[in-house]
């Protein structure tokens, strides 16, 4: 409660949380306000905004508002799923390695650093190109989660290692707690705020990665995503035709989500890390 009060005092947090809740509610409540239909042609190609179609139509004549709501839902879904997977994998590896130390820690650290250096987009391209026939949105989110966990593992490991030699951990060890018991009940609770911040950044990374993949033409076959809207607009000459409504709103949405997540993260950092607060 005290934490929330402190957070609400930070203008950055209010702005970030407000923007994020706004996009979230557009995604969640959008379908109940407008008829989201991305499969029927409601008009001609690239019709400019009008009273009937507030943001015009895309190259197939599909209503842009429908496309945007559907795309936003997919992008948020990818963000949540990829963020959850990446944070869980990274946290587990980081906590375990950081607490255990020694050889296991060395092996995990080397592995993490290896995949940190190899650009994750490259791994994503190779993986996505290989599952050409069944590239569903969920699969893409899982693939993204499995390739972007590295820096959260690195960040969590450093924190866990600093807690390893605390007295309460030693006490738990004497009392016969197993490794997993100590990791989950005596180390993780101290890092929850940190892990939450990592999760927020991983979500942003997931949304950006999906959009990048879609820009490459490796997007999901079964849904509309914000990245796919942009890719379709680019490949179907929306730029040269001057059809700004086919890409600008999708850009604004992606940027708003990522920006809101970034400033939520920095405002949380300001509260959790008092040294930055002045």
């Amino acid at each position: 409660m005290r934490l929330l009060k402190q957070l609400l005092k930070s203008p950055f947090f209010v702005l970030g949380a407000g923007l994020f809740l706004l996009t979230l509610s557009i995604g969640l409540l959008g379908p109940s306000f407008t008829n989201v239909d991305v499969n029927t042609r409601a008009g001609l190609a690239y019709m400019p905004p009008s009273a009937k179609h507030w943001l015009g139509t895309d190259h197939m004549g599909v209503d842009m508002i429908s496309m945007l709501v559907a795309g936003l839902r997919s992008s948020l879904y990818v963000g949540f799923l990829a963020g959850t997977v990446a944070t869980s994998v990274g946290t587990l590896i980081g906590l375990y390695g950081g607490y255990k130390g020694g050889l296991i820690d060395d092996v995990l650290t080397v592995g993490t650093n290896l995949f940190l250096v190899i650009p994750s987009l490259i791994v994503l391209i190779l993986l996505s190109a290989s599952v050409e026939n069944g590239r569903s949105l969920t699969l893409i989110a899982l693939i993204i989660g499995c390739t972007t966990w590295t820096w959260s593992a690195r960040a969590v490991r450093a924190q866990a290692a600093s807690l390893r030699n605390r007295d309460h951990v030693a006490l738990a060890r004497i009392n016969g707690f197993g490794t997993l018991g100590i990791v989950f009940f005596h180390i993780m609770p101290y890092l929850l705020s940190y892990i939450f911040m990592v999760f927020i950044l991983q979500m942003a990374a997931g949304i950006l990665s999906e959009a990048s993949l879609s820009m490459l033409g490796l997007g999901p076959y079964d849904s509309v995503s914000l990245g796919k809207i942009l890719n379709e607009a680019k490949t179907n000459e929306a730029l040269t035709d001057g059809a700004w409504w086919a890409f600008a709103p999708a850009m604004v949405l992606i940027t708003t989500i990522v920006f809101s997540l970034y400033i939520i993260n920095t405002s949380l950092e300001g509260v959790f890390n008092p040294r930055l607060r002045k």
Partner: protein
Amino acid sequence: MLKNRPTLAYIVGRAGWYAVTFFVAITVNFFLPRLGDANPVDTIMAKVSEGLDATSAKAKEEAYLKEFDLVEVDPTGKVKRDAQGKPVRTSLGHQFVNYLGMSVRFDLGSSILQHPKRVSEIIKAALPWTLALQLPTIVLGWLIGNGLGALAAYRRGVFDKLMYPLALLASAVPAFCFGMLLVYVFGIRLEWFPAVGGYDDGLTPELSFAFFRSASYYYVLPFASVFSIVVGGQAIGMRSMCIYELGTDYVKYAKLLGITESKILFYMFRNAMLPQLTGLALALGTMVAGALIAEMIFSYPGLGMAVLTAIQGNDYPLISGCTLLVTVCVLCANFSVDVLVGFLDPRIRAARQTGK
């Protein structure tokens, strides 16, 4: 010998580590595409025989199979075939060893889309563009971003209040979004700069004034799109680094002594730089990937465009060639940063001076 030269020992250690990383990367590059249902070998076969009559398709297929050592070949150089006339596949391990050998010789096979052309030729033509775009952008962006970050942390006030949200926004805009916006506003609407391509149509890449003038004109928009993002991200990192430094005793003491602002800023910058340099090494992969996608938006004749056309046409030899090369470039850049850190890090330098 290495014991008395800590810097050298450090560099040799890093080189060894990157050699291992390279091996992992090349393994990933080979095995990942072969994991899924769309096996590149089958795709190659299907692709090769598309729109050709039976005999020439067979000849082309055999050429590919032999090139990548995918099938058993008898001593006379003919492809071994089983009872149904299907070529006999070599084992995956055999293919991998062959792939390693080819990659080390930088022989990446021939492209499917642009058939007789070698992948290494295509990459050789694309690489200078990518390097010319990304190297200066990332280095300049890093320097200016860090300068701005340090200044914002030191000055605070209006400058910081303005710069910080802007930097956050700049780093939140995906590279391709900003690129598309630039193309639309400055390339198509205002027509200040050419929207797509790397140089004027009539020219060929050569060392002439006309070509350079044209190329630098086309350079502006891609540069701006990648630059702003690098600057934003670095400024944020440097700012929080410097706020931390500002709270340390040496800065307070220096202020009490009345040392000039610029000198304190310099001390701070020096101390905050090392973690920022390590941060650069970690962020390089993401930066390069972002810049590659920005290249596609501008149809810049670099590697990004090569990757895009390769993916669109299922040109596996070209995809894996490009991904391998991008990885190698990122690893090389990382290694250079690490070597630089070895020279700048006072802990490694001190060990060198005392001879321990």
